[in-house]
């Protein structure tokens, strides 16, 4: 363990105590201690492994080095605000945030921050868990993102679609039986038109029943009206990425998250837009399974009166015959998929007044873009 900052450490009991330090080195979570200016005063071995920096490289530097934009630029402001107002946004609360490794890749992490006043100046201790590395992560994240639980997971989408397929098949079967019966009646030399009429009436009832099932599905997916509020798009993306990127490291996927610091707030139904992001990011990761280059980029920027969000992968791309009908329900390239995710995603984005589309990635693979109006 390298001493982070020899000059600053003399008044810190933390770094003076070899015993304490040896204990801290065994804590499996990465531990980072900063002072009130954000300067790193302690960087544990677990933190070195996690972020790829040595303690010597980050000691004495601003901790925002470990954050991607726009958090990097904002962090000093957070510390400053806390000094002035004492308002706690993260201390003692903990939350899922995005960390940045030395190589520039980003990852979801759970951050718990404690505050200590052991000398004349406060110290903040951060415990970091790499959520991409954890077996239990998925469950933990779902607890954190309870609002997303409802329909977000690809898995539950699949289940929902299977249930839908079964339920839709019943009125379709009945409709088909009635129409075929009517055709048989009409094939007679003197058809019994009263019976034909009866068959067609029943057939119509059953098609209406099919429509009702589809309406129920839509209501289930959309949860009725959109619950729109002005939300920070950056925060929304950060949270959804944290959830969606679980397992990215195991899959060998390098993740870049680039969010324009000037990104405005937009009136959105947070849970639904996160559902779209989750879907796009999960698709992107699956598209790169087995590929040589696995780079996933989530980007967001301001474009006039709307926000443009893009999810790019370096997978094999979408075959042209699929691309033409990509957003139709029940079109899929996945063995296990039901082909409903993109169709629902587009419905959600269009309900927000935005657009969702796909382009080939210039470096191979696909880019999915969507827009959200900010007015």
């Amino acid at each position, binding site marked *: 363990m390298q001493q982070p900052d020899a000059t600053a450490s003399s008044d810190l009991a933390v770094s003076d105590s070899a015993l304490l330090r040896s204990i801290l080195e065994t804590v499996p979570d990465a531990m980072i201690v900063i002072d009130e200016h954000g300067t790193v005063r302690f960087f544990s071995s677990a933190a070195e492994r996690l972020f790829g920096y040595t303690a010597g490289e980050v000691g004495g530097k601003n901790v925002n080095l470990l954050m991607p934009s726009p958090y990097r630029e904002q962090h000093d402001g957070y510390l400053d605000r806390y000094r002035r107002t004492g308002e706690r946004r993260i201390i003692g609360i903990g939350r899922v945030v995005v960390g940045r490794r030395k190589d520039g890749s980003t990852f979801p992490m759970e951050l718990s921050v404690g505050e200590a006043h052991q000398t004349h100046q406060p110290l903040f201790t951060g415990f970091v868990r790499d959520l991409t590395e954890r077996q239990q992560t998925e469950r933990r994240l779902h607890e954190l993102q309870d609002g997303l639980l409802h329909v977000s997971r690809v898995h539950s989408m699949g289940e929902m679609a299977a249930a839908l*397929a*079964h339920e839709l*098949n*019943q*009125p*379709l*079967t*009945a*409709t*088909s*039986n*009635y129409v*075929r*019966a009517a055709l*048989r*009646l009409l094939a007679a030399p003197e058809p019994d038109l009263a*019976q034909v009429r*009866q*068959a067609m009436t*029943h057939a119509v*009832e*059953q098609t209406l*029943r099919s429509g009702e099932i589809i309406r129920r599905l839509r209501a289930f997916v959309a949860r009725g009206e959109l619950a729109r509020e002005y939300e920070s798009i950056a925060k929304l993306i950060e949270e959804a990425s944290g959830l969606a990127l679980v397992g990215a490291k195991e899959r060998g996927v390098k993740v870049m998250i680039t969010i324009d610091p000037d990104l405005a707030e937009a009136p959105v139904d947070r849970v639904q837009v996160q559902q779209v992001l989750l879907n796009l990011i999960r698709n992107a990761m699956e598209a790169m399974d087995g590929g040589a280059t696995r780079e996933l980029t989530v980007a967001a920027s301001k474009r006039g009166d709307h926000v443009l969000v893009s999810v790019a992968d370096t997978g094999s791309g979408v075959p042209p015959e699929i691309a033409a009908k990509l957003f139709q329900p029940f079109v899929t390239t996945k063995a296990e998929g039901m082909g409903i995710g993109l169709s629902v995603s587009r419905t959600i984005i269009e309900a927000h007044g935005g657009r969702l589309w796909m382009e080939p990635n210039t470096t191979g693979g696909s880019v999915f873009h969507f827009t959200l109006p900010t007015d």
Partner: protein
Amino acid sequence: MHDGSHRLVAVVDDDDAVRDSLRFLLEIAGYSVASYGSAAQFLHEAPIGELVCLVVDQHMPDQTGLQLVARLRAQGVSLPVALITGSPSADLVRLARELSVAKVMEKPLDDDVLLDFIEHARD
């Protein structure tokens, strides 16, 4: 052509509309239909000895179509059976074959195939 005692077809499906539409179709084709909303109701009420054949849905809440067929086979009933299902997986088809189910049909149904099965059920 059938004589009167060989024209009764049993339909078992938990979905009212599917059941009623099958009754309509089969009656137009000249059969009498006895329909039941569950396997239990069929076992309790159906005049099994008088039936030409059984058309039964696989996916029902209490007992599945194949469970009903297994019960019948255990009782020594050799009634011809057509199993109707929305998802005819390989496993389902294999199990059906083991229970001497004559036909596994995917919903929506092909009426020609269904009526051909019924027509020749007692051959």
